[in-house]
């Protein structure tokens, strides 16, 4: 099993979720994060004091998939989360040593 961490744009979440679901991947965990990278931040001004905000709101999706679904999942995310502008985000993949479903105690891919 592999875990995919995808950092995407805020407003792409619904689209990515729908696409993944259609691709048969029906579990994921989502976190609201702030990202810093090449995408330029913005300036905010409060009573004349300027702040450069480098951390931009992003969404992190964590999906654990069976090895054979990995490519499909990655491609689906790329296809739907892409706008072509800097700041579209990243996908990181990690090995999963074990997965357990709390309700049943099932292990491995059947826990997904």
């Amino acid at each position, binding site marked *: 099993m592999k875990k995919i961490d995808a950092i995407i744009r805020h*407003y792409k979440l*619904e689209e990515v979720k729908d696409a993944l679901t259609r691709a048969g991947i029906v579990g994921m965990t989502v976190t609201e994060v702030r990202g810093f990278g090449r995408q330029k931040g913005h*300036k*905010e001004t409060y009573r004349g004091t300027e702040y450069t905000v480098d951390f931009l709101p992003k969404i992190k999706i964590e999906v654990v998939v069976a090895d054979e679904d990995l490519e499909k999942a990655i491609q689906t995310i790329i296809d739907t989360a892409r706008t072509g502008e800097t700041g579209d985000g990243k996908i990181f993949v990690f090995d999963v040593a074990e997965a357990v479903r709390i309700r049943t105690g099932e292990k491995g891919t059947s826990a997904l």
Partner: protein
Amino acid sequence: MSLSVKTCLLGVCFLLALPSVGLLADEASQTPSEAPATVAAAPAAESPPADKLDKGDVAWMLTASALVLMMTAPGLALFYGGLVRKKNILSVMMQCIFLMGMMSVAWALWGYSLAFGGSNPYVGNFDHVFLEGVLPQFQSGESVAPMSGTIPTSVFMVFQMMFFIITPALICGAFAERMKFSTMCVFMLLWGTFVYCPIAHWVWSDSGWLCEWNDQAAFPALDFAGGTVVHISSGVSALICALLLGKRLGYGQEPMPPHNLTYTCVGAALLWVGWFGFNAGSALSANAAAANAFVATHLAAAAGVLSWSVAEWILREKPTMLGACSGAVAGLVCITPAAGSVNPIQAIILGLVAGVACFYACTTLKTRFGYDDSLDAFGVHGIGGTVGALLTGVFATKAVTGGTYGLLEGNGGQLVNQVVAVGAAVVLAVIGTIVILKVLDATMGLRVTEDEEIRGLDLSQHGEEGYIFL
């Protein structure tokens, strides 16, 4: 950016210039024999013959004016602010606060005069620009104040100023989350001048062709506190805005739930409280008519809560907090024109009808026609105002008006007057709004760019964020 700023400032200057010119022209022809105390006899159903200041009335009208200001902010700012997405909360609040600034100054400089000056049935004049002839003069402890009934005209003027603030602010609900701030400013100045002032003149100035207490009025319509002037004018213009600006990006695909319904609740409650100033203040006196308006207003709001919630409960399984709040506002809108013509028990009926009618408009109607009236400015104010104006013609009773009466007591003609008033307001609002928007679309542009809309108006228009909890 700087281009549109300049356009915007230019527009303002232009408008400021207009009445100044009028003023000069006017000054020339003015003779000292015109005593300032004779101007602008305001609508006061029960004002005694002698125009003597009554401190009880002044006390109530100052309070009422403060309450009506509170309706725009924090009232409407919270009610609307809670309904948008987090990234646009400040843009809504900014619209409210900025309109409080801009419209107030415009009203003092020329708006009041355009609405209440002169004796033409269709349009005001420049007699009172820069509050000429409106303000009290003080001499060694004595004051000579131009009076409107038992209150100084300046109190009447400031009470009406609060209406000139909230009416445009209501429209903001329609184009929330996508309109350019600079364009909004110019739009509102023009709309206030060319749409609001004439309608207010028709209905509420002594010489207006729709004015209830004008004997020469072609169609004297009942509009106690602004069903036509405030709610229909703003609601219908809101619909036009929604149509001409187009839908928000992602409308119908992405979820766009209200980001903070607790604000909406607080806002609705403050609107309810403030509406006592709006409606009972429209009696311009702390008398029995104000008392009747107060009670009727409250019961219509209460009935609106019940009918919208119960409609939801039956048709959508659950009564929602947002539904209850929306119902209150619907009831309040509906009773606005009627608060001086119906008794409180009839007000319950109006509230019940308004709750269901606006529920239908905000759900079924909007979905059917597919326009994106972001915060239902048309669904609540346009529909609620129209229902109220018409039902006023149905329910108006001699026992409350002391004279005029409606269909149920046998006077179908009053309903005709109401229909004409509604129609006239709708026509001017539609045409005025279309013309202004088309001009602005061609010059300044109406909407923010796609990228700005996605980042949210708070950041893109104002460079701020609402909540920084990190």
